């Protein structure tokens, strides 16, 4: 049991006083970020990332920095549930499904039960995902040590094709948005030849577009503009959680163990394959409705309808870190921002991380266990406090959020040009959201663009420009094949539907 030994060492790292303090700071900040409109996991982490630059230079500092940032992520995952249950406003896209049953429960005066159920099942989902990470990631990393450039490019290809095949947005819009991200990533100096690409003589573009600025603009400013459209008033239910309510709900929860388990499985799968937390939450809500004996009552305020999406969302959000750590391929936008952080701190995400940076990896994994326990305690005890934040009028909180976003984009490179780009990305985010162009593949492509290109070019160099290198052995061949299958999945499912429709149409004829 190598993993258990490494994990114990990880706990030794994570249990230092400084790291525990950072964990609580991260969780509290994260919940606030998750509750506020316009700030979410991805751009919250993006804004705070520059503040960790100096922290990461101290010995052991990278571990503290990742603990802080990942705890912000867990906090944001918890925070999303508060707004969707109390205010019927999903603070995060993955908590949309939580509003279906959570808000009716709050209206019936059972907000405390709904919140307790949401937090507890989030915790369960995350816990299962962390256990999966603990035991699966060393295996994946060991396996991936054998990867060469063609294999890595095939993994990238698989990631991006999965977006096309599995997102609910139109496939060509997904493709366009993704390619836009790659194009933005290509701007600046070509890392191999040093040639200037797509800069058109502008000095501001020499260093290219930073994904942090893109994330802050797309998710932050874009979200504020969208919220504005829907009007400025928030009306919310009152929440008070006392020990009685918590214990009563906990007594009820074991009844839904099967739903929890199923949702956690859906979540882990969707998080590792880059489907993400949002589709996972919808999918497991749908699955729970179909299999539950009370399925027809879903939507009227069933605790089970809160358990299913929250478990899945948290499981997916957590397990999205598995491919990020082991392969360097993040499973969600927030994981992509964390990956960007690793690169900035000078760590190479990927299989070698498990060999060269044992303290870092296992410290992080141990902090996931502790961070989620801390998170559960913080949210259960401080809900009224966080709900009060949402009662601050929008006309006060919105400009402050925009100021925070501006500061966040400025601190990335200390350049005012980035703040302008944030505004441009904000407008783009607003328009894209309204036209259902997905933003996640765009962000992932900006982060991974250079790495994907580098592995593609190395693979091409090895094979002297022969594309068949991506089918040269069983491993890379099956990865590429799977990627192509996912890429053409929308087309295939459309064809199958047509064939079925015409078959049943033919049967109806005499």
């Amino acid at each position, binding site marked *: 049991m190598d993993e258990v030994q490494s994990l114990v060492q990880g706990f030794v790292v994570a249990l230092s006083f400084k790291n525990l303090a950072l964990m609580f700071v991260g969780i509290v900040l994260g919940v606030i970020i998750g509750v506020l409109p316009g700030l979410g996991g991805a751009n919250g982490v993006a804004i705070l990332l*520059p*503040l960790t630059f*100096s922290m990461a230079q101290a010995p052991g500092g990278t571990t503290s920095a990742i603990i802080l940032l990942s705890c912000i992520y867990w906090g944001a995952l918890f925070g999303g549930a508060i707004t969707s249950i109390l205010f019927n406003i999903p603070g995060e896209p993955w908590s949309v499904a939580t509003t279906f049953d959570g808000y009716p429960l709050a209206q019936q005066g059972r907000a405390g039960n709904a919140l307790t159920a949401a937090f507890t099942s989030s915790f369960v989902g995350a816990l299962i995902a962390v256990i999966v990470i603990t035991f699966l990631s060393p295996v994946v990393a060991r396996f991936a040590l054998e990867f060469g450039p063609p294999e890595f490019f095939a993994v990238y290809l698989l990631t991006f094709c999965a977006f096309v095949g599995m997102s609910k947005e*139109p496939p*060509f*819009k997904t*493709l*366009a948005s993704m*390619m*836009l991200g*790659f*194009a933005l990533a*290509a701007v600046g100096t*070509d890392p*191999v*030849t040093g*040639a200037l*690409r*797509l800069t*058109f003589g502008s000095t501001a573009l020499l260093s290219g577009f930073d994904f942090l600025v893109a994330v802050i603009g797309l998710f932050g*400013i874009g979200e*504020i*503009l969208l919220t*504005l*459209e829907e009007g*400025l008033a928030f009306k919310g239910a009152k929440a008070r959680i006392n020990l009685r309510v918590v214990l009563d709900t906990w007594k009820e929860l074991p009844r839904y163990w099967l739903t929890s388990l199923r949702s956690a499985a859906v979540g882990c799968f969707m998080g590792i394959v880059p489907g993400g937390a949002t589709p996972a939450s919808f999918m497991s809500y749908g699955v729970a409705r179909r299999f539950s004996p009370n399925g027809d009552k879903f939507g009227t305020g069933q605790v089970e309808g809160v358990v299913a999406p929250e478990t899945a969302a948290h499981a997916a959000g957590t397990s999205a870190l598995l491919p990020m750590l082991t392969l360097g391929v993040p499973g969600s936008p927030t994981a992509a921002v964390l990956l960007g952080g690793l690169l900035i701190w000078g760590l190479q995400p990927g299989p070698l991380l498990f060999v060269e940076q044992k303290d870092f990896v296992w410290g992080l994994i141990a902090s996931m266990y502790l961070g989620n326990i801390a998170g559960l305690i913080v949210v259960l005890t401080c809900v009224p406090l966080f709900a009060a934040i949402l009662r601050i*009028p*929008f*006309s*006060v909180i*919105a*400009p*402050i959020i*925009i*100021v925070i976003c*501006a*500061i966040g984009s*400025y*601190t990335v490179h*200390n350049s*005012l040009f980035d*703040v*302008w780009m944030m*505004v441009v990305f*904000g*407008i783009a985010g*607003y*328009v*894209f959201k*309204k*036209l259902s*162009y997905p933003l996640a593949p765009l962000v992932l492509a900006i982060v991974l663009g250079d790495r994907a*290109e580098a592995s*593609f*070019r190395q693979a*091409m*160099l090895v094979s002297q*420009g022969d594309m068949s290198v991506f089918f040269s052995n069983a491993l890379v061949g099956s990865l590429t094949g799977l990627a192509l299958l996912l890429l053409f999945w929308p087309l295939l499912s459309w064809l199958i539907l047509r064939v079925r429709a015409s078959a049943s149409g033919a049967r109806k004829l005499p």
Partner: protein
Amino acid sequence: MDGGRGARPAFRQKSAEMAVAAFIFLLGAIVIYDSARLGARWGDDGPQAGYFPFYIGLILCASSAVNLALALLNRRDRDRTFVEVGQLKLVLTVLIPSAIYVGLIGWTGIYVASAVYVAFFMRRLGKYPWWKVAAVSIGNSVAFFLIFEIWFKVPLPKGPVEALLGLD
């Protein structure tokens, strides 16, 4: 449908779809053009600098061409509203001051600009009394100053007011 002048559509879904698809197509064309200029073929020492972006540009153009065609063929979107006049006005009342705010940062520094911006927002959209506006906007900038300059030691752009106060 009534709802007054504010509910009138400013843009229709179809025109918005087409405009965005055309814009992305244009960006793709720029990528292709610049990659071809750099050389998108196989050089003496391997792929040239424009090799990878060239294909990215191609897929970008192709996919946005499909999106443009789909938008053109779609009958359902013709009457759907992309954004109503009232909504657009609300969005612009935030967007334009935000752009001015970013312009102001370069001139007065971030703290003064932020105070002015928060004050404008609260007064214009929230209609708060002046003393509340002043308290929140100045308090906010002071708080950020303490957090960034003193606690985290991250220098942010400063202007004449900070110089006058000797805080540079």
